[in-house]
C-alpha cells in the first residue's frame, strides 16, 4: 500500500489511470478544472489521449466516439457544463455506449457561482437529457472515494453499458486528504460484440440510437427499463453511521454527509438517537436499506443537502411517505453547518 496527500480532483485522474481509462476529453470550468489539468499532465505521459475540446458538447461527443470503440473514456465538468453535455448523455444512453462523467457541482442556476452546491442532483440522477434513460450515479464523500468511485465507475459503465456519473461537489474537488493508491492497474478488454473500432471483427457492428419503427423503439425502451430494474436490484449502495438504534435518520451524500456525521454525534451527546444514512449510489437510490431502517422502527428522516429538496423527493419515493421526511439545506454556495443540521434534528426530536 502507498499513501499520498492528494486533492480530490487529482484523485479522480489517479483512479482513471489505474482503471485503464484511455482518453480524457474536457473543457475548462471551475471548480472542476484541475481534473482537466491533471489529465493534461498525466494522460499523455502514460500514452493515454487527452484533448481539450472546443466546447462541452464537443467533449461529450468525443467521449461518444472513444466510448463507441469499446475503450474506457471520460470527461469532467461542473453544473453549467453538464447542462451542455446533456444532449450527448442522451445519445450515449440511447446507443448504450459506456462512459464516465465526473460532475464537481457548483451553485446555480445559470452562471450562479463557483461555491459548492448539490443542485445538479436532478439533472444527473434523473437524467437531464431527452428520453427514458437513467445514469448510474456514484456519490463519493472523501478524496479516497473520489479515486475509488471513479475506478468503480469504469467497471460499472462497462458492465451495464451505461453512462456512470461520479457526482461530487466543489468541496470534494478542492480538498486534500491522504489517498491510499490502487493496488492494481487494469488493462481493459474491448467488448467486440457491440463496439465499433475499425477492425475486421467489429466491422458488422453498428452503434446507433435511432429506431424509425415505433414498435422497435418501444421494444428497445422496454429493454432499457429491464436493464435499469436489474441495476436497481444489483447496485444499490449505502453506508450507516450509528443507525442501529436511531429514531431519526439523517440522509446525506457527499460533503453534506460528512457535516451531518458531526451533527449525529452532537445530537447523540444530547441524548437524541440520531444516525446517518449515506447513499453511495444515488441512482439506484439505496431504498432497500432505507426502508429496512424505517421497517425496524426509524421514525423520522431528515434530508441534509445543499439543494432545494431534490434528494428529499427520492427519499419520499423510496419510503413511500411512511414517515416524515424533513429538509435541512443551504443553497447558493454556502455549506450547511453542523449546528444548522443539529437544530433541524432537535426540531424533529421534539415532534416525536
Amino acid at each position, binding site marked *: 500500500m502507498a499513501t499520498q*496527500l492528494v486533492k480530490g480532483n487529482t484523485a479522480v485522474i489517479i483512479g482513471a489511470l489505474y482503471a485503464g481509462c484511455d482518453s480524457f476529453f474536457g473543457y475548462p470550468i471551475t471548480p472542476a478544472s484541475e481534473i482537466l489539468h491533471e489529465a493534461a499532465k498525466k494522460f499523455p505521459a502514460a500514452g493515454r489521449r487527452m484533448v481539450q*475540446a472546443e466546447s462541452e458538447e464537443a467533449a461529450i461527443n468525443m467521449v461518444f*466516439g472513444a466510448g463507441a470503440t469499446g475503450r474506457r473514456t471520460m470527461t469532467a465538468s461542473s453544473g453549467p457544463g453538464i447542462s451542455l453535455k446533456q444532449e450527448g448523455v442522451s445519445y450515449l444512453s440511447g446507443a448504450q455506449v459506456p462512459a464516465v462523467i465526473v460532475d464537481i457541482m457548483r451553485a446555480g442556476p445559470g452562471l450562479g457561482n463557483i461555491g459548492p452546491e448539490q443542485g445538479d442532483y436532478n439533472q444527473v440522477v434523473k437524467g437531464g437529457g431527452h428520453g427514458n434513460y437513467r445514469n448510474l450515479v456514484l456519490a463519493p464523500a472523501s478524496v479516497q472515494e473520489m479515486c475509488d468511485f471513479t475506478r468503480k465507475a469504469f467497471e460499472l459503465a462497462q458492465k451495464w453499458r451505461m453512462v456512470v456519473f461520479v457526482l461530487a461537489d466543489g468541496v470534494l474537488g478542492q480538498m486534500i486528504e491522504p489517498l491510499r493508491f490502487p493496488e492494481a492497474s487494469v488493462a481493459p478488454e474491448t467488448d467486440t460484440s457491440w463496439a465499433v473500432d*475499425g477492425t475486421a471483427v467489429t*466491422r458488422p457492428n453498428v452503434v446507433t440510437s435511432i429506431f424509425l419503427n415505433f414498435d422497435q423503439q418501444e421494444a428497445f425502451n422496454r429493454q432499457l427499463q429491464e436493464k435499469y430494474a436489474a441495476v436497481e436490484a444489483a447496485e444499490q449502495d449505502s453506508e450507516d453511521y450509528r443507525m442501529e438504534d436511531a429514531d431519526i435518520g439523517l440522509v446525506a451524500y457527499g460533503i453534506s454527509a460528512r457535516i451531518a456525521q458531526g451533527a449525529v454525534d452532537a445530537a447523540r451527546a444530547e441524548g437524541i438517537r440520531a444516525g446517518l444514512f449515506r447513499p453511495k449510489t444515488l441512482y439506484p437510490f439505496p431504498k432497500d436499506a432505507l426502508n429496512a431502517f424505517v421497517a425496524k422502527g426509524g421514525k423520522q428522516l431528515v434530508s441534509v443537502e445543499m439543494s432545494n429538496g431534490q434528494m428529499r423527493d427520492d427519499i419520499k419515493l423510496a419510503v413511500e411517505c411512511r414517515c416524515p421526511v424533513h429538509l435541512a439545506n443551504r443553497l447558493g454556495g454556502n455549506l450547511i453547518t453542523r449546528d444548522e443540521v443539529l437544530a433541524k434534528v432537535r426540531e424533529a426530536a421534539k415532534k416525536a
Partner: protein
Amino acid sequence: MEKVIQTRGLYKTFPRKGGSAQTATHYCPGCEHGVLHKLIGEALADLGLQDRTVVISPVGCSVFAYYYFDTGNIQVAHGRAAAVGTGISRTKNDAVVISYQGDGDLASIGLNETLQAANRGEKIAVFFVNNTVYGMTGGQMAPTTLVGEKTETSPEGRDPLQAGYPLHMAELISQLKAPVYIARVSFSNMAKLRQARQAIRKALEIQRDGKGYAFVEVLMACPTNQKMNVEAAIRFVSEQMEAEYPLGVLRDRSGEAKTLVRAESDYRKETLDRLLHLDTDRAPDAKLDPSARTVSVKMAGFGGQGVLSMGVILARTACAAGKFVSWYPSYGPEQRGGTANCGVVISGQPVGSPVVAEADVLVAMNRPSLEKFAGEVKPGGLLIYNAAIGEFAAPAGVRVLAVPAQELAKQGGSPRASNTAMVGVLAALGGFGLPDAVYREAIATHFSGKESVVKQNEAVFELARQWGAKQKP
C-alpha cells in the same frame, strides 16, 4: 438499377433498412447521395480499407448511411460528427474515420466542431454534401442556400440582409493550416464525376496512410426540396451552385504530409506508480488512534502570503506522521488577489467535516483575517498572528501570540517564507504531536526540485521553531 445499387464497399442488401425493397435505398429519386455512397464504397473496397473503416452517419438525409456502408458504423447527434470522429481517431490510431455530413449538420449546428477538428488536423475524411437545403426536415434554408434561393424558411428567396450570405466551407477550411487535402467537386457531368471520384480516393488514401484531415465538399442536387425535376436540379448545380461555389482542389499536401501516429496506452502499474511519484512521495497509511485529540486549524491571510501552502505543509506533515488529515481551501476568485483561507483537521480517526467552523488554532497573516476569524477560536484555543499587523485586542479565554514572521523569515534567509515561519511556531506550540523531523521532510517534499528553496525554508522553520519554543502565549 440493381447493378447500380450492388456496389463494392456497400452491402448487397439493406436489412437494417427493413421493409420489403431490400436492395433499394431510402433516398428520393434523383438524389445524388447514392452516387456519393457508391464512389466512397468503391474506393474503400479498392483500397482494401473496409475492415479499418468507421463511417459516421450524421443527422440529415444520410442519417441512415449505416444501412449501406459495409464497414463499422456509428450514428451520431446533429452536427457532432467531427467531435465523435476525433474520439474514434484518437482512440484507435489505425481506424479510417469517415464523416459524412450535410450542410445543415456540418456548416450550421456543427460549424464549431467542423472547424476545430479541421484545425487540429484530425485523421478524418469529411464528405460534405452541399445541396443548399435541409433535406430530412423538409427543405429549410441552409447556411449554403444561395442568395435569392427559395426554401421553406426563405419563401421570398434568401435575403442577405436577413440571413447573410452562403457559407463557403471549403474556402473557410482552407484558411486553416492543418488540413492536408481540401477539394470541391460535383457530379453535374461525366468529367466532373471523374474528378470527384479522384478527390474521394485521395481523401481516403490520406486516411489509409494516417496523414490527417481531408475535406471534400460535394455539390449535389436535391430535386425534392429544390422542387425541381432531376434535369433542372442538375442544371441548378452546374449553372448556379458552381458559379457560387467554384470546383477544384483547394489544397493537396498529401505528398509532403507525414503519417501521424497516436500513442499507445501504457496500463502497467509500474508506469503509473512512477508517473505519480510514488517512489519519492509516499506516506504510511493513517493509523487509527481514537485516543488522539482532533485538532482543527484555520489559516487565513492575503492571497500571495502563502496561506494555502502553509496549510498543505501542515497537512503533509500530519499525513507523513500517519495521521488522518484533511485540508480544505476557500477557492476561486478569492485566490486571485483577495483573501485566502484554509482549514486543516488532524485526527487519530477518519476526519468528519473538513470545514473548520470552530478552530483550536488560528493562524492569521493579515488584519482582515484576524478580525474575521478571531471569534471562531474555541475557548482555550491558540491564536497566532503576524506581528506586522500591529495592535490587536485579543478575545478573552484564548491564548494569543504575535509572531515576527517576516523577521524570522528574513533571518532564515528567505524573506518570502513568513508562512514557513508560522509552521515553525506551530510545530513548537500547536500541540499536534508531530515530530519536528517530519515537518522538515514535508517541507522538503513540498518544495521538491528546488534545492536552495528547500534549504532556506528549512532554516526559517528551524529558527521559528526555536523562537516559538521560548514563547508562552
